[in-house]
């Protein structure tokens, strides 16, 4: 890779595994629990966050030397909110249907702590290009977990993936339902999302020595 140095590349690969925003930094849990009942919602949210994180980190990084430290959180909040509202308005005017799909996510994006967390931890101290890459990397790490959780919750909770009934029809009793299989309605509720995230953290920690804490 000519464009990205090894150090920059690490900014993308790290959040995917060893420094994942959800499982290691424990950021963005609220949205990971709220909207992962379906795979489609997970994907939409991931793409939206990818966009806002990349641009937001870039903007904050460009402004990092002029933001007064005392009010930096407020300044960050204004930047995210402005970005999200601009995107929302433009979509409403030029891609109305897409904006309908995204409308419920707007509030969730603004309050997503991954975004604020990365502004604080990275963009305020690093240059624009590296901040942009860091934003993309963390959004991808977030997306990865969201999609895994969404996949299992929709599969086990509704017996479908992206709306397609992959396990057969639960009412007509076809597919695996013919053998007495039942959907687990509990998977659709937020507590099971937390447990699913917990299982991912458990698997990740047990396989990676560096993450095991001494006690």
């Amino acid at each position, binding site marked *: 890779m000519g464009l990205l140095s090894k150090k920059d590349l690490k900014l993308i690969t790290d959040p995917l595994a060893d420094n994942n925003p959800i499982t290691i930094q424990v950021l963005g849990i609220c949205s990971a629990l*709220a*909207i*992962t*009942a*379906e795979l*489609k*919602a997970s994907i*939409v*949210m991931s793409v939206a966050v990818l966009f806002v994180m990349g641009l937001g980190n870039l903007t904050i990084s460009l402004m990092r*030397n*002029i*933001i*007064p*430290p*005392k*009010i930096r959180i*407020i*300044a960050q909040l*204004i930047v995210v909110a*402005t970005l999200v*509202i*601009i995107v929302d*308005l*433009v979509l*409403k*005017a*030029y891609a*109305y249907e897409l904006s309908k799909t995204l*409308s*419920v*996510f707007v*509030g969730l994006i603004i309050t997503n702590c991954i975004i604020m967390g990365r502004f604080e931890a990275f963009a305020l101290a690093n240059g624009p290009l590296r901040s942009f890459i860091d934003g993309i990397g963390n959004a991808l790490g977030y997306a990865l977990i969201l999609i895994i959780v969404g996949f299992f919750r*929709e599969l086990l*909770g509704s017996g479908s993936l992206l*709306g397609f009934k992959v396990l057969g029809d639960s*009412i007509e009793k076809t597919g695996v339902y013919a053998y007495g299989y039942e959907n687990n*309605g509990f998977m*659709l*509720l937020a507590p099971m999302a937390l447990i699913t995230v917990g299982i991912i953290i458990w698997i990740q920690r047990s396989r990676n020595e560096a993450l095991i804490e001494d006690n």
Partner: protein
Amino acid sequence: MAKNIESNLYTMLFTTGMVVIVGALLAFLSSSLKDKITENKRIEKQQNILYAMGVNENDKNSVIFVSKDKVASEFSKYITKQLVITGTDVVEDDKAYLIDLKKETAAAKIEGYTRRLPLFMGMKDNIQYYIIPVRGKGLWDAIWGYVAVDNQLVVQGVYFDHAGETPGLGSNIKERFFMDDFKGEHFLDGDLFKGISVSKGNSDPKNLDKEDFEVDAIAGSTITGDGLAAMLKKDLKMYLPYLKTIKQ
């Protein structure tokens, strides 16, 4: 000025500057896109009304409206009359679909104000449809929709939408598997108004019983479902005096 970004003066200037810039940017953007957004919303309303009476391009599982460029002609073709009901007064008004239900609900709280109720009459394949707009509260935000009934006051189709119900749970009220269940449902028991409730465990998941005044709920969205049932009950009731005059 050797930039002292810690100073109070700088902080105040920065805040003021940021507010002015962001405010101006958003105000400019919002006012320049306003016309386009209003137009999109108008088209969407027409699409929703047509959808409820069965004018759509649905495939097996998904909701597909008549396309944007066809909607104006389809709307004038299928929607034969638009009425505004004010108390006992019924007048025709081809802008009735633009009546803002939210504003009407708010205005209805003022003493002496009689609420305007828009109603759309549509004709498709020689069946007369009456399409009733409804609006209520879900779990997080507003929910609304359109209910199409025939002259027996049996539901022939619905369209529901929401401002911010939980994705994957409450947001499913606008999915086919939920909306299609309403087809054929009754909300009147003889002359008695019953409404349609969204109920769990009614041992009728296939929704074969159309006269039980119930449809099957969505798992994990109890409050959205209850809100939807309350919305139907409240708003259909307002139209009842008029609807009874059309029942044959």
